[in-house]
């Protein structure tokens, strides 16, 4: 009964490279996937910039962890959600994103949060 893997929703709100927060959050989700936790990702606000295609961090002298989002299915992570309004507000479309996502409105986001045991707010 005890210690069953919990379902986790990562709420990712921060841009990819200004601070290491996003990259270190990504390390948590990789670890969680190895524990068979069911994982979903929700990108809100500037967190959307983590999903932009063809990022090049050479001039920043840091690794570009965002390219690993392409490989999420290898880790059995198939539930990736994006706030529709936040996408539009940043002048982006689904074609700008590195992987297929599901667009959600505010009401659907509330429902998504309610469906998970654990919310990891980053």
């Amino acid at each position, binding site marked *: 009964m*005890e*210690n*069953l*893997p*919990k379902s*986790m929703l990562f709420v990712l709100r921060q841009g990819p490279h200004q601070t*290491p*927060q996003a990259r*270190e959050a990504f*390390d*948590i989700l990789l*670890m*969680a996937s*190895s*524990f068979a*936790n069911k994982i979903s990702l929700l990108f809100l606000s500037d967190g959307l910039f983590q999903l932009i295609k063809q990022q090049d961090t050479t001039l920043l002298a840091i690794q570009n962890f965002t390219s690993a989002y392409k490989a999420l299915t290898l880790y059995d992570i198939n539930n990736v959600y994006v706030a529709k309004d936040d996408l539009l507000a940043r002048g982006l479309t689904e074609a700008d994103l590195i992987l297929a996502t599901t667009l959600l409105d505010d009401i659907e986001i509330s429902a998504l949060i309610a469906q998970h045991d*654990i*919310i*990891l*707010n*980053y």
Partner: protein
Amino acid sequence: MNFTILITAPVFDSQGAYSAYQFAKNVFAKSHSIEQIFFYNAGVYNANRFIAPPSDELNLVQLWQMLAKQYSIKLHLCVAAAQRRGVIEKNLADGFSITGLGQLIEAINASDRFIVFN
């Protein structure tokens, strides 16, 4: 309720870590328990034993140590995050232990509630 608390905010430079401390204290005041407190990102600075504010200011490192002792709770750090920020065994404050993200996930799976302080 049994809680796991994740702290990503540094000591002194942000209010997040002290908010986490106040929350943790009140978890016990309300007769709940804490499975684990995990320090990650810049939160690992909370475990630097050389943090030495003036005596009339808050010393959060000491407060964490007293809380851990009083309630026998675990204060864990992620080794990768800590090494990147120069928090290693040499300057690790008593009561903290350097572990890994696996410990965090295990604690999350073992607790009723999980909360992040950024």
